[in-house]
């Protein structure tokens, strides 16, 4: 059976690096993997999504509505936006973090309240974490994406793969240690 993981966030949050590490780890484990990104104007504050599908043989690279085994949101409103992609019985991982869009900044729309409460109530298997705060406590706020990767790897039951080696290949030497620390923190959540 193929598995589908959807990573969603806002341009600049590091979703693409996270996806890359996950995909490389899966490839190393011998899976057929397809990864599809939509990031046309991501640098300009838009929402970013990555679809990763893996298994024996993957055809379509797109994860449709109700198909994601795991939906991992790096930002709360993005969790709302893509919730419909989560499979019934799937796992939702959401970072309790807010990034305001232009409409919220200028006051024409309000940032939705009590997102976490609603999500936890609706989805049986929801994992909420303060990824940004955890990363900040670890000393490098930018590693929040790797904290989330740790949580994701655990949710997928892929802890046995050599993720540290994959990170060595994809993350610059000087921030590697901080990222490995972040990954382990995520695994322990």
């Amino acid at each position, binding site marked *: 059976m193929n598995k589908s993981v959807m990573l969603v966030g806002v341009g600049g949050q590091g979703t693409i690096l996270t996806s890359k590490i996950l995909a490389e780890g899966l490839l190393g484990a011998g899976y057929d993997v397809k990864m599809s990104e939509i990031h046309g104007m991501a640098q300009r504050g838009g929402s970013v999504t990555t679809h990763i599908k893996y298994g024996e043989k993957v055809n379509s690279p797109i994860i449709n509505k109700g198909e994601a085994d795991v939906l991992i949101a790096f930002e709360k409103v993005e969790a709302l936006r893509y919730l419909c992609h989560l499979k019934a019985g799937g796992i939702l991982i959401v970072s309790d973090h807010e990034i305001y869009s232009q409409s919220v900044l*200028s006051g024409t729309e309000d940032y939705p309240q009590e997102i976490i409460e609603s999500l936890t109530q609706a989805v049986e298997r929801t994992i909420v974490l303060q990824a940004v705060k955890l990363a900040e406590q670890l000393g490098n706020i930018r590693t929040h994406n790797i904290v989330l990767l740790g949580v994701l790897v655990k949710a997928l039951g892929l802890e046995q793969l050599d993720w540290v080696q994959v990170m060595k290949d994809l993350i610059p030497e000087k921030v590697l240690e901080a990222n490995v620390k972040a990954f382990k923190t995520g695994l322990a959540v």
Partner: protein
Amino acid sequence: MKKFLTGNEAIARGAYEAGCLLAAAYPGTPSTEILENISQYSEIYSEWSPNEKVALEVASGASIAGSRALAAMKHVGLNVASDPMFTMAYTGVNGGLVVVNADDPGLHSSQNEQDNRLVAPHAKVLMLEPSDGQECLDFVKAAFALSEEFDSPVLFRVTTRVCHSKSIVEIGERVEAGIKPYVKDPAKYVMSPGNALKRHPVVEEKLLRAKDYSETCPFNRIEWGNRKIGIITSGISYQHAKEVFGEQASYLKLGMTYPLPEQKIRDFAAQVDTLYIIEENDPYLEQQVRSLGISCIGKERIPICGELNAEIVRRALLGETEPKTYQVSQKPTARPPVLCAGCPHRPLYVALKKLKDIVVTGDIGCYTLGMVPPLSMLDTVICMGAGISSGIGFEKVNRMAGRKEKIFGIMGDSTFFHSGITSLIDAVYSNSNMAIILLDNSTTAMTGHQENPGTGVNLMGQPAPVIDLVNVVKAVGVKPENIRIVDPYDLAETEKAVQEAYASQELFVVVTKQPCALMKDVQKKREGLYCYSDAEKCKKCKACLRTGCPAIAMKNGTIHIDKAQCNGCTLCQQVCKFDAIAKVGE
């Protein structure tokens, strides 16, 4: 060796392995990364051409001179390059010529959703359509050989999901194709009416041969499964079809989609009970199948508009209802892309917003985002160049109608080199009195900072002559007294120039010069610069918020400027009437 590659990376690798010696393109989503990747191979001369027409012409010259050559572009780029494309079908090639065309179903980053498969029969060139990364690599290599065998450019048609999806690709070694001798042959390469008339039957004969080839070629294959359902499909649609039907159907998977294998289609159709045509956007395959007198089910069930996926196919053909998922009551707030914090385009729009009675004809680039509230400044955006040229026509009719609005045409530097120069020539030649704003941020920003003729560097990273935009403006005849060059970070200066343009009775050009805020060296230079708001002085007039800067927010009744995003452009400080915003750093 196996690699995990996007379709674009695989196309680049395929061109390299095929012995391609020259590649040219103008950046455009989703095709941009093809040339970015090709430029990493030192064996291939690669260039960002000013536009797609130039790119294809450069490639055509290389082909006639005897080398394998490639041009890449997004779908609307092929509109620009159609002129050489259609006539290259007549001249044919010497070295193989591959034209990569990337369509954008779903308009992830485009101004229309045209289906360029229809171009192949119109231009009378062969067409290949890969479905994944491996086929991108294999088909590109085959495309060069086919181009030489059939003496025709090959249209290599991909879509966003093929370009931007990664899959496992077995890569190989480069095989040098060398440079063929060039033999002068005006009857083949000089398309005067008399010569072209004689070439047309050659083109038709070539297509007949290609059709025979299409019947037996390895790109058009049948995968037998359950014969109750037969599916004819191509490109990414094949993947969606396989996902939905698996072994429960048989497939005619078409990789060469022009000319189509008519007999193969007839044979396949005859052996299945129900025939589905699964394709994205236009009924290209379906119309061909129907023209053979074969009944099938296609666009009456599968929508023409938008990107296709397995769920749409499932619902359309299997009648499945919405899949089970979750719902909550909160609605996500919209998150459209916006001009970045510190974007040098923003002050220009803030200056323009003060003017009443203006019509703004926009263009393609980051500055298209000037349409987004609260700026909301654009009246039209059509295609590259139209920011100036459509303004010319608008102004003429405004005059006839006795309307008073001033026309402002907006365009960036890369777009100016792409299509703006000829438009500007017309503005001069037609005695237009519109105002033109050229936003020079020294890069092709929207597609991710590609070099252009104004940046002094080429795609291969070598120093190149700088084409000075202002000199071009002067050279085509805009009066020097009607040209202003401003630093957009100086709002007063920008406003003054815009107001002079507004008041002028003659063609007026304002050039704003400030590099894109996202460029690495700019970010480095401006590191540590930021603005902050003084809550005691702030009167909450929201003038700063109305600039639409994403770094500025009203939080709990006070203005907050996000230090991480702010680059200290000081636009907010300059619009603040109460001296409540200050800047840190020099």
